[in-house]
């Protein structure tokens, strides 16, 4: 049996169980997307090397538990030979979580799958001061809980009201979850401070008098669950240019690498330095 370096194995998703005789093999998925061929491979390897058990992780990943220590490397090789990639553990960038997004969901405003794939390709597995997580959610319903992640990307739609076809039925006032729409005589106005960018008004308006003025991306930083829970802070308003989002993400990761202390989540870095300062330094030189 080869000598196993447990810390090195952890980096590549090969995690020692409580019972040290066994390892869990954690796989890398982007946004929880897989396919029947890969699932067959997973099933076969779980049966051959483990006990046939498969665990779905909290971050949309797949884990194969109960792989004996002397089979762990062989099982991993078998997964990689079949084109599957190993996940990550420890102080580095973890798998990207995403909802189904615009492609599948009627509420989805942004293409979460392609964003998850790009973030995964660009950042997965890179070392950071502590674990670092991306979450991408298609709209402000926030099913993928983007704001629980170190970086959250959320789709949003900014509505505007046009008087032409409006029958003043008042549905918009009643369905807006933030009470951001006010009827003022024959006019409807939006309280921009309160608007969640959720698109319920534009989706439901019987006359399409509420319509899309802009759609784009809302970024949150510093979200984390775990021992010291903290929801992400809004970094900007609605960003309409995806490339700007990617540039900001790159800056955020670099900023955390430079300023984060060992085993300090990004949210705690923000609390230590102050949100105003972090936001100012991140947004310096950016405009959308």
């Amino acid at each position, binding site marked *: 049996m080869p000598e196993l370096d447990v810390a090195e194995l952890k980096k590549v998703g090969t995690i020692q169980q409580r019972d040290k005789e066994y390892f869990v093999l954690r796989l890398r998925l982007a946004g929880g997307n897989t396919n029947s061929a890969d699932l067959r491979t997973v099933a076969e390897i779980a049966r051959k090397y483990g006990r046939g058990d498969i665990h779905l992780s909290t971050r949309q990943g797949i884990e194969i538990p109960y792989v004996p220590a002397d089979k762990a490397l062989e099982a991993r090789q078998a997964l990689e030979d079949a084109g599957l990639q190993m996940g990550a553990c420890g102080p580095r960038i973890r798998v990207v979580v995403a909802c189904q997004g615009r492609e599948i969901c009627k509420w989805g405003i942004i293409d979460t799958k392609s964003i998850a794939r790009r973030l995964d390709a660009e950042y997965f597995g890179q070392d950071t001061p502590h674990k670092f997580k991306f979450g991408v959610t298609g709209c402000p319903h926030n099913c993928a809980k983007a704001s629980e992640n170190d970086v959250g990307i959320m789709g949003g739609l900014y509505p505007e009201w046009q008087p032409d076809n409006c029958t003043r039925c*008042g*549905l918009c006032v*009643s369905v807006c979850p933030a009470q951001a729409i006010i009827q003022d005589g024959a006019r409807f106005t939006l309280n921009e401070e309160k608007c969640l960018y959720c698109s319920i008004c534009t989706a439901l308006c019987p006359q399409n008098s509420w319509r899309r003025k802009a759609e784009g991306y809302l970024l949150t930083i510093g979200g984390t669950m775990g021992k010291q829970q903290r929801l992400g802070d809004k970094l900007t308003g609605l960003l309409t240019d995806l490339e700007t989002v990617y540039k900001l993400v790159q800056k955020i990761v670099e900023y955390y690498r430079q300023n984060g202390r060992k085993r300090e989540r990004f949210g705690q870095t923000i609390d230590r330095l102050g949100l105003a300062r972090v936001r100012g330094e991140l947004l310096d030189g950016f405009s959308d």
Partner: protein
Amino acid sequence: MDFPISKSLDLSGVTCPLNFVKTKAALAQIQSGEYLEVLLDEGEPLLNVPRSLKDEGHTVMRVTPQDTRFKLIVRKA
């Protein structure tokens, strides 16, 4: 503006999607251009029924909050 109501439906306590099924059945009993009055619970019913009505081409003409319910007037397509 008052709408001449051809049919009234109280969907208090009726959950999704049955409330929309009953709404559709009621709409089937009136003529195109006539008005149906529907009483819906707050929450999911108020989000789902108007969206389904819109999908099928009917038009919500008025929404009146009544405590924890909403009275909708719908014009049949």
